[in-house]
């Protein structure tokens, strides 16, 4: 899908999303800045920022194989962990000064165990994240966050005061607010950017130092104001886990549909809500992760309500005509969620396409065929 928007800010953001490192990150490192890899989204990046380090969401972008993972994982493990571990073993992630993970899923929690055992890492920490959402779980998670803070303080010889934490929360909330503004622009009948571009912008937000990112995002939002906009034959939403590859969205959009919003880990789930700024900051972070941030299937008990809410929002606010869900093969969480989505969307008579992919995008022709058929069905339904 062609976009006539000319924006150097967008180009820089897209380049950052397409590589593991970027000039801004390298400059940060050259000035002695530390970079802490986060294996998943349950890691509250604010604490790392408050420690004076840069949080970085780990990806295996550019990975071409999983040979070095074969000794530690089997075919039953998802391609994300296999590629990421392979990437680590090859030294592609050597720019990281540490890694933090959580018991996000069965694959990732063992990825952490294997990583710490085999990849030279520096600092490492494992966060236990509750499996369900409730007040007791907020308390339990706050305790974990306190231990995380202490561990960072000890390792890096810094003090992470509540004041610093509040400042970090404010900074990250600013990112989220800017990202939400970008999403709002996509409500228009002719959105200024494609879904692939939007995902690239969101992924870039996890690998560029925050101030630089804010500057680029503000510039992009300004550039969007003057954009001709994209005429989309069909408006769709993508729902899924931690998709970090804009090429997947491009494959869908190449067939005539425009992805105008999403519910993705790197996407809208990451910016929908702000962390509270009242009271104890660690409690605010724990509440955000356990109770407030849009839930994904990893967190038991909130998904059904959330799903109904975001579908309604997508249809009413974004004019979404069809939903595409994406699942990494071997992912149990999203395996069931795709079925739950199917049931919910069928009740509402909203066209739905469920796709399964591997982490490194292959079989693009096959993806396009499915996307084409799906988009054709949306257009046909309109003609009825």
């Amino acid at each position, binding site marked *: 899908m062609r976009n006539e928007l000319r924006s150097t800010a967008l180009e820089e953001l897209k380049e950052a999303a397409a590589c593991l490192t970027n000039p801004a990150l390298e400059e940060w490192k050259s000035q002695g800045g530390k970079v802490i890899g986060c294996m998943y989204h349950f890691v509250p990046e604010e604490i790392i920022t408050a420690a004076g380090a840069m949080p970085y969401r780990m990806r295996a972008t550019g990975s071409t194989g999983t040979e070095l993972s074969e*000794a*530690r*994982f*089997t*075919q*039953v*493990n*998802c391609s994300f*962990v296999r590629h990421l571990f392979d990437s680590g073993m090859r030294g592609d992630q050597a720019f990281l000064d540490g890694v933090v993970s959580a*018991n996000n*899923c*069965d*694959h990732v*929690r*063992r*990825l952490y*165990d*294997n990583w710490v*055992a*085999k990849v030279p890492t520096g600092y490492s920490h494992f966060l*236990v994240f*509750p*499996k*369900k959402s*409730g007040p*007791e*779980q907020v308390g*339990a998670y706050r*305790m974990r966050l306190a231990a995380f803070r202490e561990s960072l303080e000890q390792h890096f010889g810094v003090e992470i005061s509540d004041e610093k934490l509040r400042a970090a929360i404010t900074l990250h909330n600013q990112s989220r607010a800017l990202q939400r503004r970008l999403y709002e622009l996509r409500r228009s009948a002719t959105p200024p950017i494609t879904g692939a571009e939007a995902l690239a912008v969101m992924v870039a937000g996890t690998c560029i130092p925050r101030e630089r990112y804010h500057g680029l995002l503000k510039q992009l939002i300004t550039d969007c104001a003057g954009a001709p906009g994209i005429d989309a034959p069909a408006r769709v939403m993508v729902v899924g886990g931690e998709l970090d590859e804009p090429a997947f969205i491009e494959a869908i959009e190449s067939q005539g549909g425009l992805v105008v919003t999403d519910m993705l880990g790197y996407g809208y789930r990451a910016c929908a809500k702000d962390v509270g700024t009242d009271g104890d900051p660690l409690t605010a972070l724990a509440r955000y992760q356990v109770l407030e941030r849009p839930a994904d*299937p*990893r967190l*038991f*008990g909130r*998904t*059904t309500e959330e799903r109904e809410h975001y579908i309604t929002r997508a249809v009413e606010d974004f004019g979404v005509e069809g939903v595409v869900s994406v*699942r990494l*093969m*071997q*992912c*149990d*969480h999203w*395996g*069931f*969620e*795709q*079925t*739950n989505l*199917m*049931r*919910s969307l069928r009740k509402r008579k909203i066209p739905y396409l469920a796709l*399964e992919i591997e982490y490194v995008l292959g079989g693009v022709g096959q993806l396009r065929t499915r996307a084409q058929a799906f988009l054709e069905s949306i257009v046909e339904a309109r003609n009825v």
Partner: protein
Amino acid sequence: MSDTPAGTPASAPATKRGLERFRMYAEGKRAMITMIEESPDPNPVLLGFFKLMLADDERIVDCIENDKPLLSTWYGNANEICAAMDIQAYCLVDNILHLGPTQEDLDGMDAVPIPADMCGLIKMGAYAVEKGLVPVPTAMIAMLEPCDAQSALHEAWMNTPGWEGVPTFALDPAYGATGWDYDYFAGELRRMITFLEDHVGRKMDWDRLREVIEATNKQYEAWAEYNECRRAVPCPHPSSFPTSDLCWGLTQHIVAGQPEVVDVITMLAGDAAAKVKAGVAGVPGERIRILWADLVPFWHGPLSEWLASEWQANVVMDFQGYTPYEHIDTSTEDSMLVGLAKRCLNEVPMIRQARGSVDAMIEDITRITKDYTCDCVIFPGHVGHKDQSASVGFLREACRDLKIPLLILTVDNFDPRFTPIEELSRQIFEFFEAHGLGEGR
């Protein structure tokens, strides 16, 4: 609980979900009991086992027929508490697994719209609810451990027609094995009790809980005695699979704390002890002693038979049978709840090895291979155990340090079609041959 499962023709009479199936399960067990009783040498252990399992099915049928409270729960959810509150519980995959899925069940499983790469047990759970093979419960306790699919499965049930609105409480499993973890989970158990009081209408009887736990303490002691016998060389009984199924079934899959369970397991242990004394080998000419590093596979029969007849190989222990149980202190409410928390987190097969870090699995393998004088470890690589499959590197290192051969397979413990027995036996054959196992004993 009167309703009609999805897909039932309009002309069919209204039926209660699960009734037909559970009556069938009960009938099947009655038939087994009759067969055993009429055999020339009735096995008292099997007789005791089937009678206890039948009694549980009959109670469930009674609940369905008479609209009595029925709780859907799992083996890792402290069923001692249900027993103390006089709540009849069921685990909805139990009978399908114990009796074995029919071809119709396997085909039905394939028809459930969830990905093929998920665990067979999970698929069966989804299928059983979708097809109305199990009753819609009064309430549900979700077990969110040990794996991702457990959590997702419960959420899917809550979205299945007929099951929407079933009051549900999920136990949040702690990740570690510290005092804090047990206290936290004990807190979850307290909240579960409140939930059950509110939604099932039964009150917790702490004295009854004490009795139940004390009975289970005795059960696990008896089981430990049995396991002790299996350490003998030669092992007095054949493959651990049937006895692990039996003991786990009686201790965690029926109403908890029945004294008769102690009797059955004690008989089993007594028989084993007598055979140890007499030097009897469960597999005559035992040559290879195997640790099966996972739960008992549903299709264990043909595998055990082939191992014994072709190789004089005996699965002397598996993860399901091994789990070490601690005596629970019943002096106070708190000590009982903390003890139950420990049991749920550490002492349920599979949950023990899968729930937290990789350490528990490696420790168990280290301990079992030494205690049971194993010649090799077979790691089945069950497709549902994603975390364990991502532990193969640690497994290899541990077995290398133990100087014990390791075979890594990929199977579905609950679906015999995934890796057919012919393929399994070929891989095991090559493994035994390559390592010279069984030679020179």
